[in-house]
């Protein structure tokens, strides 16, 4: 849009300059024809008033006047061009600066958004990791407790066998059946009713 406007302004200036030059040249032609008519009239009415020298002088004056006008217009055109170029430079600078600032702001905003998203994602990840770690810790603790309880329970269940095994390993060869007689009879006495009942009613 800005480039098109610039092209339009430059085109308008060039058109104005071409029109001015054409008008000047056309006006000079008309004056030349008037001079010819006047010369013809002077030739008709007053012979030899405007001789060749006089005409040459007029021609020179006209040429000088035309060159002066051309020079002035060229100067005006140059000033306009410089002014326009300067304004155009200022405009482009301001536009470019503004666009760059807008782009930078957008870029900065995008960076900030991405940064915020990354921070939120990292925070969520950290939270999830902490939760998983806590759950894992609880699970491990539960497993350790269960394993410990299972070991203790198994030890308690088999404790009699374990102690019996070690007792027999330690003094098994030194235990005589006669020494156990009292213990065996006491056990038999304790189970006397059950034994008698089973022998009475057994098949």
């Amino acid at each position, binding site marked *: 849009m800005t480039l098109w406007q610039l092209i339009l302004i430059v085109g308008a200036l060039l058109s104005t300059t071409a029109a001015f030059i054409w008008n000047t040249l056309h006006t000079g032609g008309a004056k030349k024809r008037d001079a010819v008519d006047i010369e013809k009239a002077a030739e008709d009415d007053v012979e030899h008033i405007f001789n060749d020298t006089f005409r040459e002088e007029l021609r020179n004056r006209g040429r000088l006047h035309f060159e002066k006008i051309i020079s002035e217009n060229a100067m005006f055109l140059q000033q306009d061009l410089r002014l326009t170029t300067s304004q155009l430079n200022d405009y482009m600078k301001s536009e470019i600066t503004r666009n760059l600032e807008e782009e930078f702001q957008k870029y900065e905003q995008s960076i900030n958004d991405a940064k915020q998203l990354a921070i939120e994602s990292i925070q969520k990840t950290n939270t999830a990791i902490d939760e998983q770690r806590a759950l894992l810790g609880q699970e491990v603790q539960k497993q350790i407790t269960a394993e410990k309880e299972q070991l203790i329970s198994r030890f*308690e269940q088999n*404790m*009699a*066998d374990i*102690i*019996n095994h070690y*007792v*027999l390993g330690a003094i*098994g060869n030194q*235990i005589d*059946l*006669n020494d*156990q*007689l009292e*213990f*065996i*009879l006491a*056990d*038999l*006495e304790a*189970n*006397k009713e*059950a*034994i*008698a009942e*089973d*022998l*009475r009613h*057994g*098949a």
Partner: protein
Amino acid sequence: MEPSQTQQFLLPVSVVGLVDLGRLARELELLDAVLHEATLRGDIEVKVPKTSHLMDQLIEATRVDLAQPKHREWLASTLAILKQQAPRVHMSFSADPSPQFVAKVLQWFRTEIHPYVLLTIGLQPSIGAGCMLRTTNKYFDLSLAKNMSKHTDILMQKLRGQGV
């Protein structure tokens, strides 16, 4: 004396189990055959052959006269009845028990449980200390391990009391 009922029969503790009963029955059968032959031969004085120590104890306990055919018949029938109907128990020990030990145990059974209990001895080294008793339908674990397992609470209290 002419015992006619099994309840009057006193089984000595030297007769432990079915093996002894069978041995006595076979010996009695031989005796009966020998004495019957002597009777058939018409011997005036029938002399009872020498019997085994087990048979001697049985005769002493039952006070029977083996020279009398009725006594022999009664004794044979009684032994047969005992072989079929006497209550039987099986005891396992970690080592082979001595005859005195078996006699004491058997005495307890015949005093406290039934006068004609027959005992079978088994060997189970894994018992360690104590014994295993098997009756007709039940199994009694009278070993040291079982006894300790009954007192697990006390053992745990002792262990925990020592900071284990």
